[in-house]
């Protein structure tokens, strides 16, 4: 812990899951419901004692299904609500997420991803990319998805998620993984602290109505053509999110001959790998999508005008590579370095892949180690 001259704490050492929980509270979260599952247990544990200190409510739900529906209820009153889980639990929540998306309810959900499918294992994985970015539940909808690469971003992202969620009335997801959830790093609080008393009640929230017109929160409309109209109205908001809220990071990309594309934990590994490649004289760069939906496809497409080789590094069986290929539209070679099942990728093995592509000229390189 370090302090500035006034004695304020500047940096603190925190676990990813706890930084996420505190970050959410600082961003105005006042209701949390969740169910225990490794490796995200620190989130509900932290919330259980911390939320009451700020006048919030915590419920240990009987299931992930119940938890997401408690969020459905809480967020319908415009309370900043949050639930978290890990992969199998997120699968259980999909019905409720779909209802929330269909009812235009803003809330924060965190997935501290573990190895799957099924019970899988409890190691960090990126195997839920499709589930997070392609909907997950039934029907036409999108989630705003942010992928932190460490504890600092676990602390920062709840703020951005709530901002986007409430501005556009969409659910927002933080897609972390077991590594980021469990690691400890020093962080500082960078995002503004929200005073919930100053938050304006939106014109859709249900609650004590003091004689105003009745309000309804629903995800259905059986009248002919009306559901389509409802979805098309929502898609307009999705388009605006795609235009205004996309985030990414670039590292050593200006002169790169090969660009690694990776998010979260695999982006950290890739950052080490490009340094090692540069030491060997290979001009490698890193492109890190920070929002997974909307995906930074315009920028990737631009880069493909100049760079001919992209290497997607992911702790999943080749999921994000589909977005990279869709972004690049066949302008460059897209290679894959993938490890599923909660196995960590090492910088050395990524370097090996970089060498195979750049020095040995391998086309359509794909490794599943």
């Amino acid at each position: 812990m370090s302090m500035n001259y006034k004695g304020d704490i500047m940096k603190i050492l925190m676990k990813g899951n706890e930084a996420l929980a505190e970050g959410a509270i600082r961003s105005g979260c006042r209701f949390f419901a969740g169910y225990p599952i490794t490796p995200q247990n620190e989130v509900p544990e932290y919330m259980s004692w911390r939320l009451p200190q700020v006048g919030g409510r915590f419920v240990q739900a009987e299931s992930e299904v119940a938890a997401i529906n408690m969020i459905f209820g809480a967020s319908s009153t415009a309370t900043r609500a949050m639930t978290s889980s890990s992969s199998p639990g997120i699968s259980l929540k999909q019905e409720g997420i779909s209802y929330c998306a269909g009812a235009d309810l803003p809330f924060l959900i965190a997935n501290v991803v573990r190895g799957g499918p099924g019970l899988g294992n409890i190691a960090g994985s990126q195997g839920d990319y499709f589930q997070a970015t392609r909907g997950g539940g039934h029907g036409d909808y999108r989630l705003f998805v942010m992928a932190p690469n460490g504890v600092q971003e676990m602390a920062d992202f709840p703020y951005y998620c709530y901002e986007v969620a409430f501005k556009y009335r969409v659910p927002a997801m933080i897609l972390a993984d077991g590594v980021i959830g469990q690691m400890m790093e020093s962080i500082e609080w960078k995002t503004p602290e929200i005073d919930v008393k100053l938050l304006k009640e939106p014109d859709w929230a249900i609650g004590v109505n003091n004689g105003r017109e009745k309000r309804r929160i629903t995800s259905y409309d059986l009248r002919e053509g009306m559901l389509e109209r409802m979805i098309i109205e929502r898609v307009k908001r999705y388009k605006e999110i795609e235009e205004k809220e996309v985030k990414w990071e670039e590292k050593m990309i200006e002169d790169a001959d090969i660009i690694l594309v990776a998010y979260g934990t695999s982006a950290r590994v890739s950052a080490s790998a490009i340094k090692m490649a540069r030491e060997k004289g290979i001009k490698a760069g890193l492109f890190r999508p920070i929002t997974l939906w909307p995906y930074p496809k315009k920028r990737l497409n631009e880069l493909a005008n100049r760079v001919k080789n992209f290497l997607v590094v992911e702790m999943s069986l080749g999921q994000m590579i589909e977005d990279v290929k869709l972004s690049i539209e066949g302008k460059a070679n897209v290679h894959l370095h993938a490890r599923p099942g909660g196995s960590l990728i090492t910088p050395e093995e990524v370097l090996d892949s970089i060498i195979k592509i750049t020095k040995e000229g391998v086309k359509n390189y794909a490794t599943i180690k």
Partner: protein
Amino acid sequence: MQLLNKKPKSLFDVQMHYCPGCGHGIVHRLVAEVMDELNIRERTIFIAPVGCSVFADMYFNCDAIQGAHGRGPAIATGIKRSKPDTIVISYQGDGDLASIGMAEIVHAAARNENITVVFINNAIYGMTGGQMAPTTLIGQKSTTTVSGRDPKVNGYPIKVCELLSALEGTRYAERTTVHNVAGVIKTKNAIKKAIKNQINNVGFSIVEILSMCPTNWGLSNNPSQAIKYIDEQMVKIFPPGVYKDIK
């Protein structure tokens, strides 16, 4: 001319989609009358389930929410804990509450959530066209028990009031009927008590109401037989009465 009775303010004067002889319309009116009498319309949040009463969020003149099948008590938990000044009513049918939503209702009761549950038991899945419900009687015919419910194959009906009253968190559980005038009056009193309990922070209260479904009982030609069915068959398996009442 003298106006003897009028429609409650808490219920919109609209055409409802319920079948002739259905009990939902009666119970809707009773809930609305109680809302009027307790002057809580402006702070009530009505939760519509999935099932025949799925559109009830449009009928009540108060804020309303329609949620996923069986999850009403979880949604109610989220609303009530976020906004304790609201009066939260979870309106549910037998498939919703006693089948797919059994975990949610049991745990809401166990937590003693300060909410009111209005539970319509008509022993059948109505909206989907008459399949066996968790409360379907032994021998009762449905589209998935065409020769009648056979306990060897389909098990036994679930008695919700008996089950929930075994939980420490349940404060008030009463079973009533709406198949005759006395039953309707008792039902209204029970709903009133269950909502008063919420106002007075007594805690989890549920009213189970035996209700007619002439359409899916195969009695649409003769709805009076549906009334008889409750009188002669249902009350034997689901005896009306107060199962729990803790002040």
